[in-house]
C-alpha cells in the first residue's frame, strides 16, 4: 500500500475569514494548506515552492494584486493550476470566462469562480485540476 503525500495548496486572500474558512474546508478534505494575505507574502512563499495548486483572490491590497500574482506564478510554475476567486462579479456584473480565448490571454488562471463559492464546488474543481 503506497502512501500518497497530501497535496499542498496555497490560499491567498486578504479577507481573514475567507482564508480561515477555505483552509479549514480544504484541510478537512485532506489537503495541506498554507495561507497568505497579500501578493507580497504569497510571492515569498511561492519562491520557497512546493505547492500543487493555488487559490487566489482577484483583488487584494491593490486592485490587480491577485491578477498580477497569477501572472507571476504561471511564469515560475507553468504547470501549477490556479483557481481565481473574485467578488468582482457580484459587485460589478462583469463575468470572467476562461473558456473564452480572449479572456484566457490575460487571466492566467485555469478557472475563475465567483464569491460566494460553495465549498463542495471548490473541492470538486480542485480534485479535477489535480487529477
Amino acid at each position: 500500500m503506497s502512501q500518497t503525500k497530501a497535496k499542498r495548496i496555497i490560499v491567498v486572500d486578504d479577507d481573514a475569514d475567507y482564508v480561515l474558512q477555505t483552509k479549514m474546508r480544504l484541510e478537512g478534505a485532506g489537503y495541506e494548506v498554507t495561507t497568505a494575505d497579500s501578493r507580497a507574502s504569497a510571492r515569498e512563499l511561492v519562491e520557497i515552492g512546493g505547492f500543487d495548486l493555488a487559490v487566489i483572490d482577484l483583488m487584494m491590497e491593490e486592485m490587480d494584486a491577485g491578477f498580477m500574482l497569477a501572472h507571476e506564478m504561471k511564469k515560475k510554475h507553468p504547470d501549477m493550476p490556479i483557481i481565481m476567486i473574485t467578488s468582482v462579479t457580484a459587485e460589478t456584473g462583469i463575468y470572467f470566462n476562461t473558456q473564452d480565448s480572449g479572456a484566457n490571454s490575460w487571466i492566467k488562471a485555469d478557472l475563475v469562480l465567483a464569491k460566494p463559492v460553495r465549498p463542495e464546488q471548490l473541492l470538486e474543481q480542485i480534485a479535477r485540476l489535480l487529477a
Partner: protein
Amino acid sequence: MTVRVLVVDDEAGIRTAIKRAIENVRERFDGIDEEIIYETVLAEDGDACLKHLSDGLGDIVLLDYKLPGVDGLEILRRLGQMKHDGVVVMMTAYASLETAIDATKLGAYDFLAKPFTLDEMRYSLRKATQHLVLRRQAEQLAAEKKQVRFQFISVLAHELKSPLGAVEGYLRIIKDQVAGDTIEAYSDVVDRSLVRLEGMRKLIFDLLELTRLESGQKERDLRQIDLNEIVAYCAESVQTQAAERGIHLSVKVADGLKMFGDRTELEIIFNNLLTNAVKYNRDSGSVTLKVGAKAGKISITCADTGIGMKPEEVDRLFGEFVRIKNEKTKHITGSGLGLSILKKIVSLYDGSISVKSIPAEKTTFTVKLTQGDVP
C-alpha cells in the same frame, strides 16, 4: 436664474407691452440666493402656445382666457395632460366667479383681470415666480433626500453582506463538522464569528447615530461644559486601550476652559479623536491632545505618532463607510462612520476639521468649535 415667461394673447399690443415691461426686470426673493431674470416668449393663439410649451418654453404662462378658436380652460386641460411643470396666470376680461373656480380646479394659480396695469401684471408675475421657484426648490430637496437615503441604505446593505457571509460560513463549518467532532477545534471559528457580529452591531449603531444627526432628530442638551473635566473623562476611557500597547497619552487643556455645548456630542468628538489616535498608532508610540481657545473658537489638536496616511488617503478620509485599507491597517477594526459622525457634530458648532499626515510618522487632527456663551 432665468425664468421663461410665455405670454399667450391674441392682441399683439398686449404681448409686446408685457414683453417690454419685464425684459429688464431683475427679481430678488427672500430665501433664494440667485437673482431672477425673465425671458419672454410670445404666442398669439392656442396652437402656438402648445407648441412653445412642448418645447419646454413656459415656466410661467400668462394665458389669455379668450383665445381665437380655443378656450383658455381647454389649454389648461392640455397643460394638465402634458404634466406641465410651471405656473399659469390667467388673463381675462371675462372674470366670472364660475370661470375662476373652473380655472383654479384645472390648475391656474392666479388671475389678472383685464384691463390691468403693467404694475398689476408685474405684481402677479412676481407672486407666480416666487411660488414656482420655492416649489422647485422643495421638490429638489425632497429628491436629494430620497437619493441620499437610498444610497445610504444601499451602502449599508452592501457593508453588511460581508460579515453576514463570514458568520454563515463559520456556522456551516461547524454544522459540517469540517474539523472533527471536538468543540475545541472550532474555537477560532467561534471567536471570529463573535468579532464579525460585534462589527455589525457597531456599524448599525454608528449608522443610527449618523442618521439621527443628519435628520436633526437628536435633542441637544446645551449647557456650559468644563473642558478640563470632559477631556480627563474621555482620556481615562482610552487609557486601557493605550496601555495595552504601551502608548503614552498626554493631555493639555487651558486652565478653566469652558464652552457652551452638548456633553454627549463633545464626548463623541474627544473619544473619536483619541481612539483613532490610539488605534492607528504604533506600539510604544504617543498621543498628544491639546485644547485651547482663541477669538471665540475652541481649538483641539490631537497628534499621534502612528502609521500616517498618504495625501490620497487623507482626501477620502471623511467619506461614509470609508476605511483606509492597506497593509498597515489590516487588523484595525471600525465601522468607517466615526469620522462622518465627527464631521456632522463639528458642523453643529459651526466648526471645522482638518488633517495633516506624514506616512509612517504622524497624523494630527485639528478641530475648531465655536465656544459659545460662557461667562
